[in-house]
């Protein structure tokens, strides 16, 4: 049976919205107090409704008390709890931000070949800065090959006219990469 005290407790704790451990302690502590109050009323054969009213009068409005307990238990804990509830949205937002970042500013690649060893050996992971605009001989760049694949290469020379790059890959002839095909410059790698 869900009596007046339990109903009242549920209401208070719904407003307080505490961490689980805290909630248990607070519930048991408040229950002790409320039972103490209710016992006298029950001895006088009060109805469930009368007990309810008495608790509200003697103890206070569940909403006010629940909110006050939440505040008293510290903002940090309440904050964490709120964050936990928001976690799915937070993750989705972070995911979208990372995606946008990858599309526009910086991108993570992994070297699938030894084409630009020893600069970047096979298996190394790297960050490619996509907003890079000026290239110098010796830079390692990522570009799209004629077959549409992502490749790495070391810049040999830069054409002052159209900005195209002459790049070198181990074991391949030097190739000219049009400016539009350049993805960006490798700015960091795990070598």
């Amino acid at each position, binding site marked *: 049976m869900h009596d007046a005290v339990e109903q009242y407790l549920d209401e208070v704790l719904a407003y307080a919205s505490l961490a689980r451990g805290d909630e248990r302690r607070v*519930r048991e*502590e*408040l*229950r*002790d107090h409320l039972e103490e109050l209710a016992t006298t009323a029950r001895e006088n054969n009060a109805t469930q409704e009368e007990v309810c009213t008495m608790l509200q009068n003697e*103890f206070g409005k569940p909403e*006010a*008390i629940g909110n006050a*307990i939440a505040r*008293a238990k510290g903002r940090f804990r309440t904050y964490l709890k709120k964050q936990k509830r928001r976690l799915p949205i937070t993750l989705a937002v972070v995911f979208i931000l990372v995606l946008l970042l990858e599309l526009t500013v910086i991108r993570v690649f992994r070297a699938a070949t030894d084409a630009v060893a020893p600069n970047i050996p096979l298996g190394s992971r790297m960050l490619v800065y996509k907003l890079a605009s000026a290239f110098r001989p010796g830079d390692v760049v990522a570009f799209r090959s004629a077959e549409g694949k992502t490749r790495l290469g070391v810049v040999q020379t830069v054409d002052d006219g159209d900005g195209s790059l002459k790049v070198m890959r181990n074991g391949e002839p030097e190739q000219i990469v049009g400016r539009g095909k350049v993805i960006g410059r490798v700015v960091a790698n795990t070598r």
Partner: protein
Amino acid sequence: MENRAQFLKGCVRTLVLELLQERPMYGYEIASALKARSEGIFALGQGTLYPLLYSLEEKGLIRVEREEDAPGAGRRRCYYTLTPAGGAELEENLVTWREIARGMNLVLGGHHA
């Protein structure tokens, strides 16, 4: 009325520290003692006692000295006691209170007494 509630709330904080300095007590005991010793002036809204206790606890002014299971299922009594910081806070509050009481009496005394 709103004003009165705010005013009482500030007082209860000091009174709770005073009661706990006398001896460790649990919630219902504190509420009963407040009610009885103030001749009912500090009787209403016993539930507001708990937010106060928890906030004093978070601030390190009081702590739970011991817990015991009360008769009946799922009931717990937490006996609160003053920490040294709480004792210092009480001393400070008492000095402040004496000043305020003296100031109020000096201004109001005679006219509204």
